[in-house]
């Protein structure tokens, strides 16, 4: 009992100490993300920390262990709200579940900044996320360059229902149609981001178009499908560009099976979100969307200092 009391007293002293250290007059921005352990979310955190240093603000960064833990995220959000932050930076796992709390925050006049896939509501003052349309257009430019501005290309996309899926598809297709008249789009198929389904689709596209020159996979699963198809059919002469990362995709690029891929910039997402929060606290005007940028990576640059932290396995 004595030992326990002593332990608690020690803990108390420690906590009061950290409490006073933390209680500075800097503006406080609470960040609640959709994940924590995953490298993508740690990269977002790194960007947020950098922005906090640059703008001299206090931040906390929390997220549930997995993207299924909706209730944990709501608890984290509730606690963040109780700390009375000057701004809230939030990426909802489920907007419906979080809506009452978001509305409460909004009614207190605390600005809310959405990031990544954001919040499906018009309450947030802005959303810091990848502009998938622009990123995919760049993939089209790279593709044209790889196949010599003429030939036949196809694409595997995750779905035609999600906003991300549509933007990545349209960014690629529109750019090819509008800027490269010598390139023909022979097929676009949807594999739900599923490795196996995407593999079957990619194989049938290659079988029916043996003279295919280029292939675009609009997310990790779609790109992995193309990688599998190319390996099974022995067709690594087809120029291929993927999207996102993951160990299979990284290996395929390293081994020259596919040419390169686009990656989002999670560090940029964290940085821009906190930057936007600082501006919102000051009452500055913000655009509805903040493009957090993207990178094209291939065998040559994937180990560089800038890209390493962005590529998750």
């Amino acid at each position: 009992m004595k030992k326990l009391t002593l332990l608690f007293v020690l803990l108390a002293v420690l906590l009061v100490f950290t409490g006073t250290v933390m209680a500075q007059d800097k503006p406080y921005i609470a960040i609640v993300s959709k994940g924590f352990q995953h490298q993508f979310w740690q990269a977002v955190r790194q960007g947020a920390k950098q922005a906090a240093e640059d703008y001299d603000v206090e931040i906390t960064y929390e997220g549930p262990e997995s993207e299924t833990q909706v209730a944990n995220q709501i608890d984290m959000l509730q606690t963040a709200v109780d700390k009375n932050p000057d701004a809230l930076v939030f990426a909802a796992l489920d907007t419906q579940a979080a809506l009452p709390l978001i509305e409460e925050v909004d009614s207190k006049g605390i600005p809310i900044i959405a990031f990544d896939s954001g919040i499906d509501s018009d309450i947030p003052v802005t959303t810091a996320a990848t502009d998938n349309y622009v990123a995919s257009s760049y993939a089209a430019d790279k593709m044209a360059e790889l196949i010599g501005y003429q030939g036949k290309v196809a694409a595997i996309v995750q779905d035609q229902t999600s906003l991300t899926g549509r933007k990545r598809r349209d960014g690629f297709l529109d750019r090819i149609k509008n800027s490269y008249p010598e390139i023909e789009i022979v097929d676009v198929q949807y594999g739900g981001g599923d490795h196996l389904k995407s593999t079957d689709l990619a194989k049938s596209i290659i079988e029916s178009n043996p003279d295919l020159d280029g292939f675009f996979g609009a997310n990790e699963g779609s790109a992995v499908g193309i990688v599998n198809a190319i390996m099974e059919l022995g067709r690594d002469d087809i120029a291929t560009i993927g999207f996102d990362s993951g160990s299979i995709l990284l290996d395929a690029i390293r081994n020259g099976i596919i040419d390169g891929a686009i990656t989002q910039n999670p560090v940029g997402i964290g940085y821009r979100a906190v930057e936007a929060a600082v501006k919102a606290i000051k009452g500055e005007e913000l655009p509805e969307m903040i493009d957090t940028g993207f990178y094209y990576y291939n065998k040559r640059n994937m180990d560089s200092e800038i890209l390493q932290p962005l590529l998750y396995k």
Partner: protein
Amino acid sequence: MDANIKEKKQLISADSKQKVLAFSSLIMMIIVFSIASPHFATFSNFIGILISTAVTGLLAIGVTFIIITSGIDLSIGTVMTFGSVMTGVFITFMGLPIWLGILGGILASTVAGIVNGSLTAKLKIPPFIATLGMMMVAEGLNLVISGTKPIYFMHTPAFRKIAMGKFFNIPHAVFIFLGAAIVAGIILDKTVFGKYTYAIGSNEEAVRLSGVNVDRWKIAIYAFGGFFYGIAGVIMASRLNSAQPALGPGYELEAIAAVVIGGTSLSGGKGTILGTIIGAFIMSVLTNGLRILSIPQEWQTVITGAIVIIAVYTDILRRKKTA
């Protein structure tokens, strides 16, 4: 005779000592956090703590009975979610009245409990394995039944009121939790059901030899646990305004930790509902307080784990002293 009374007295005082110790730890934690942060001791934060304790608390109450019989239940979290998902199916998919949907959801979890009990009592499968199987079966069924997507209660706004409607500014979930705790406490302390729960945990063979149908009681106790997980599932769904099929794994450990911190022995025969409630509050106050203090998340986990070990160790020390 004298020795018997003495032993009994010691047992009682030991039990109450543990409760006092657990309770004073809880109070001390609250005081420490209140001093450390001005955001801790606020009405809104206390309500936050109460709501987040409601779900784990209900789960912990249910499994307390099972642990006292020296059983265990690993299917707590996913059976809770089974209750949420079935409530969603009844209300949103089938359009049944809210009360009927809730009843159906709770019943679904209770049935899962009956299956757990039957596997353990009738087929003699060790409860660790039987409920591990149920944990996975329920996890899979939740995804199958819901089509792997959350089921929303968009067209029945009244459903959200079940947990989040307010009475004197306090959400209903808190009253449901405290009400259930009192009822469970009475059942464990004052009824035959409670008496057999303790007896089976202390010496199952003796109870069997005295002519009691142990199997039937065991099935009832696991069903009772499932019933409480069902209530927790309904509250969870109401709070999130949706049945989230992938939720569940992880909750079993939180609930079991609360029970053990509350002084219920994993070897059976001992334990109280009050202890479990205190245990559940220790866990949630700790999680909340560390968040309020903005302790980095990775350290929050380390500290929580350490506290669980310390709490159980002090319990062992106390047992040694009284033995």
